[in-house]
């Protein structure tokens, strides 16, 4: 008999975790490292179950589960364990003449009790990676995994309860009702991965308590292909990044391609060739792709394909099977720019190619749309690379590859505008869940009378000199020469 999660449960949960936090349970280095190592044990001991749950929920191939979820998590945990002492150490800050004599530092402190709400497409990675950040930073944390990946959600609940300190780390399973109840509580930080629509709801709920948020959202990540690129490698990387990553259901999936009218046929041919090499002549039968997560999303994608002026633009694929929740890798060319497929994040195995007279035009097309989480460019042209990196606003930019920046712990991963706010990975995760407290140590030496009333012209001059850090002037005033 499943107990129904109610308002009182949410309140009790937060109260309990707050007590643990206030008691100092999560503050010490030892506790944090122990929890992180327990997460590592989960990865080591339960990989087959994780792979199985991901297969149940998403039809995810074993390699994707092992590599893009478990292995990435393992790396993330190992990095945190290795660097934690460093991360926890205060940073020294410089002081200046106006605050002399003093020393200053920045102390990292946990925010308190935090909420992590994760998504269904990488349910383990997107649940545990933020939790790694929360724990390293010394917080108590509640995780709410997505109900759209139920096997993963329940496995997460089971494993986290089994391995981690449940006085400070908890999982709440559920859907809209449970999430709403959780959002009514006062959290010290909310970390959300999901859609822009829900991101707004989260931020609005957070505003009631002045809770800071990290929102990892999505968008239409464009891929610009220049004619001087190595087309074979380009095609392979796009395919691996799109269909090879949860069948296009990823926040940084290449959403659509921009290339010239002239080059487009070559691009299509290269994609067709490599798609066949990867997935065979019958991609619907291939075991190397995830399926569509559920019938709602299947119908959403179907509708995109069936739209008038879109359905006749299919140049490859287009097959669908609702029972099996499969849609074949599908390429379309020059669908109308105001069609559904070009207006919302596709999040599926459909790849529109928009052709331009001149590659230059790609900047306007991208700029006319909300800022995406990622923007990709394939080219050997140094000037184009520089211009792209500088003028295309996106969460992150990758040149000559797809999605890999997600795996780099030294790069901040996050969005801008509609694609989100805040970032994480590596130390950025630790920072995301920390308050950087400024600390100034002043001594009692040198109590300048100029600080205090009554005010006089001499004091004003000295103040001005101090503000300008003008040593000469300072001395002159003190000596009464100015």
């Amino acid at each position: 008999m499943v107990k129904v999660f109610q308002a009182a449960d949410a309140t009790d949960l937060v109260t309990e975790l707050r007590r643990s936090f206030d008691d100092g349970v999560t503050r010490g280095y030892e506790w944090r490292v122990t929890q992180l190592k327990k997460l590592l044990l989960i990865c080591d001991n339960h990989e087959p179950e994780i792979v199985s749950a991901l297969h149940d929920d998403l039809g995810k191939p074993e390699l994707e589960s092992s590599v893009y979820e478990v292995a990435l998590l393992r790396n993330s945990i190992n990095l945190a364990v290795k660097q934690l002492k460093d991360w926890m150490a205060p940073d020294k800050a410089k002081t200046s003449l106006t605050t002399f004599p003093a020393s200053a530092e920045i102390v990292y402190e946990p925010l308190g009790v935090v909420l992590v709400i994760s998504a269904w497409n990488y349910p383990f990675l997107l649940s545990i990676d933020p939790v790694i950040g929360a724990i390293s930073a010394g917080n108590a944390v509640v995780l709410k995994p997505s109900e759209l990946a139920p096997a993963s959600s329940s496995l997460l609940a089971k494993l986290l309860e089994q391995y981690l300190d449940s006085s400070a780390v908890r999982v709440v399973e559920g859907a809209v009702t449970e999430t709403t109840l959780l959002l009514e509580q006062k959290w010290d930080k909310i970390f959300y991965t999901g859609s822009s629509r829900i991101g707004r709801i989260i931020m609005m709920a957070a505003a009631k308590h002045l809770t800071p948020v990290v929102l990892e959202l999505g968008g239409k990540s464009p891929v610009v292909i220049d004619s001087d690129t190595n087309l074979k490698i380009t095609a392979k990387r796009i395919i691996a990044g799109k269909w090879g990553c949860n069948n296009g259901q990823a926040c940084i999936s290449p959403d659509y391609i921009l290339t010239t009218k002239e080059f487009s046929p070559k691009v299509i041919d290269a994609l067709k060739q490599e798609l066949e090499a990867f997935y065979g002549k019958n991609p619907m039968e291939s075991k190397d792709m995830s399926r569509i997560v559920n019938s709602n999303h299947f119908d959403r994608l179907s509708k995109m394909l069936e739209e008038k002026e879109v359905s006749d633009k299919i140049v490859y694929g287009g097959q669908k099977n609702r029972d099996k929740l499969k849609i074949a890798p599908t390429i379309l060319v020059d669908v109308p720019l105001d069609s559904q497929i070009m207006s919302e994040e596709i999040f599926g195995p459909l790849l529109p190619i928009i052709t331009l007279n001149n590659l230059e035009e790609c900047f306007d097309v991208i700029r006319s749309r909300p800022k995406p989480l990622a923007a990709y460019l394939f080219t050997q042209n140094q000037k184009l690379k520089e211009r792209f990196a500088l003028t295309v606003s996106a969460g992150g930019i990758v040149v000559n590859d797809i999605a890999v920046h997600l795996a780099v712990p030294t790069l901040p991963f996050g969005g801008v505008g509609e694609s989100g706010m805040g970032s994480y990975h590596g130390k950025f995760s630790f920072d995301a869940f920390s308050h950087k407290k400024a600390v100034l140590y002043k001594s009692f030496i040198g109590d300048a009378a100029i600080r205090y009333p009554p005010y006089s012209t001499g004091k004003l001059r000295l103040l001005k000199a101090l503000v300008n850090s003008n040593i000469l002037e300072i001395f002159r005033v003190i000596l009464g020469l100015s």
Partner: protein
Amino acid sequence: MEAMKETVDQSLREMRDTFASGRTRSVKWRKTQLEAIIEMVKDNEDKMCDVLFQDLGKHSIEAFRDELGFVMRSATTALNSLDKWVVPRKSNLPLLFYPATGKVISEPYGTVLVLSSWNFPISLSLDPMIGAISAGNTVLLKASELSPNASALLAKTIPSYLDNKAIKVIEGGPDVATILLQHQWDKIFFTGSPRIGKIIMAAAAENLTPVTLELGGKCPTIIDHHSVSKDMKSVVKRISGGKWGSCSGQACISVDYVLVEQSFASSLIEMFKPVIKSFFGENPKESGCVARIVTKKHFQRLSRLLNDPRVQASIVYGGSMDEEKLYVEPTILLNPPLDSEIMNEEIFGPVLPIITLRDIQESIGFIKSKPKPLAIYAFTKDEKLKTRILSETSSGSVTFNDVMIQYMCDALPFGGVGESGMGRYHGKYSFECFSHEKAIMEGSLAMDLEARYPPWNNFKLTFIRLAFREAYFKLVLLMLGLKR
């Protein structure tokens, strides 16, 4: 209001076009604007002191120290550091990704909104603008209508010094703010009360606009009289200067209340009296060194706080008020009831409650029972107490043995936590506050690893597993067929 809506629409359109043109991205443009701000403040120093006197009764030294000098220094720092700040930061990538390279560049958000507060109307307007401009944004300022002369001066002066297709000023109160908040901004920077902060954040949520909220709280001051007995005179001077010498206690980082051991309380009060007299003379109202309360409404609020009979009974110094002159005398209370209003909301005025404890160690628990403040001040030389304060309390900042001065240290981030705010600025943090840190990664088209691509098989799986573990030796063995 229709006219105002039209003005806002037009302003936004112009600022967006200007940003799209790329003009504000150039370092030269940014430096020119920063230089212009310095020039503007220099040229208008007297006028600025005038409006600060008109709006708040600030003495020109207070005006210079807390606002004008501060702004000029902030702009100078930005000017001198901008070349460094705009340089992309290289990131070291794990060997696995060789020969890819990674870096992070700071990119302006675009068109940003700065809403400033009335207590430091010049610096709280210009300082965030300095950050926005250094980061390459276009910016619209709405200063507070509660400091109308300062707001008007900024509205009149800024257009003649700065690029007014990129930097704009709008005057007005809550109704104008509402109109502004209905529009989409790329960032909103707000200084003010937590109550309004919530409204701002909720409005920002509609457009997923990131916000920095510089709010307030009750900033406690701990006096550990045992360890600082030798320097007690300095302690009292610093607290007095901070509380009554800066906008009459109407500052977000003002000393709100003092915590001290019972045994020292009366000596402490006796030490405050001569200090206050030395600062403000026998009649502080006539000294010209005490700022006035900003409006009648705020005066009445303070009046109400003090009129609670139990609070009245706790007055040990001062207490006189003049509604016409909007003057409240530097006032000290001893142990007003902890459930009184004055002990539960940010005072924002020249009234200083002293709360006594049996043991100064109790100050930690006391502070923790209240919302996280913007600053905690502690006068102590006891290292153990310092450590306890740092590790057991939470606040925007902690300053030992002084008050307010952390504001001047631009190597320290200035911002709150919890109820006292989110985000931070000053120095380089101002630049970062208005920048999106964009990750750029570049791979090579020359090399390729077959193991990256489907169709998947055990070899590829093992390869990738080993690569992720950075078990390079085993990887080589695998490739040579020497590992299963």
